[in-house]
């Protein structure tokens, strides 16, 4: 992306995010939403983020797209700790520790 494109993206994201936040409180007001719309909205983060992460975990760019045991182990650890503890920072910490531990063991 060129510098100008990055600025355009930042501006679009800023305006778009604000409009999403302002949507009901400022523009639409107190009209009931259809239940199915509310249902779909509830799943947006878990519908988008896993699909974005999966290829990064399986085919990391740093290894030229080769599957990498260290990165797979780190991803698995972050997932397990996040599921069990519901603690974001703990999951990041354990995932990072496993990554460095495994990279060190494999001499990478």
């Amino acid at each position, binding site marked *: 992306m060129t510098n100008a494109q990055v600025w355009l993206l*930042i501006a*679009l994201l800023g305006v778009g995010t604000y409009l*999403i936040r302002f*949507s009901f409180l400022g523009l639409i007001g107190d009209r009931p939403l259809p239940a199915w719309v509310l249902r779909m909205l509830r799943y947006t983060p878990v519908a988008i983020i896993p699909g974005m992460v999966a290829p990064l975990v399986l085919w990391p760019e740093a290894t030229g797209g080769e599957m990498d045991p260290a990165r797979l182990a780190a991803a698995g650890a972050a997932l397990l700790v996040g599921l069990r503890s519901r603690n974001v920072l703990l999951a990041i910490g354990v995932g990072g520790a496993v990554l460095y531990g495994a*990279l060190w063991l494999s001499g990478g």
Partner: protein
Amino acid sequence: MSISTAISLFLRGARDSLPFVIVIGPFGMLFGVVATEAGLPITQTMVMTLLVVAGASQFTALQLMTDGAGVWLAMGGALAVNLRMAMYSAALVPHLGKAPLWKRAMVSYLIFDQSYTLSVVEYERDPAMSMDRRIIYFMGTALPVAIVWTALTLVGALLGNTIPDALALDFALPITFISLVAPMLRTVAHLAAAATSVIVALALSGLPSGTGLLIAGAIAMAVGALVEARMEGEASR
């Protein structure tokens, strides 16, 4: 309302937000570091943080940019992550809908997971709260989180270039995303949506960057909603 009442109400909101403030610091710093590593100059990192004020979508935008997605696809993916805020906006209408427009416009800028959750709990606990008090409490829950997030993003952006490549920061984003999402997987419907997203995105990984993700996201959202409707139907039977 006297100034001292207003201040103590604001401080109560700020105190309630304290656990979130502590967690958001390192997260903001990570965004600053990763943005700098991805090649964004500090001005772009900071303008993005100030305009968007939404961590997960900022990380998403960064990832899609590094993947080589174009402006529109990167915007689509990052905004899709923020769509849940439309739900927050709708849920705040019964409580703040009668406030003057400029106050609603101000509140809207600071609607995020933490401020929304804390405020709605408080409004429901005390339905007799006046409109002024509701707005001040909201600001108390939102401003400390937003300020610490922005300040620590700056610290991270300034440190970004000093961190050696050996630290394998390429994998900081995937670990962060997994750690963000894993705690959200509370129900079968959430798990089904996440699994659908992974499977469809991998199957469509040959498509131009970002395209498969948007398709996967739309299908996964529908799957989550369908499974939820199913489960509710069974529960009520």
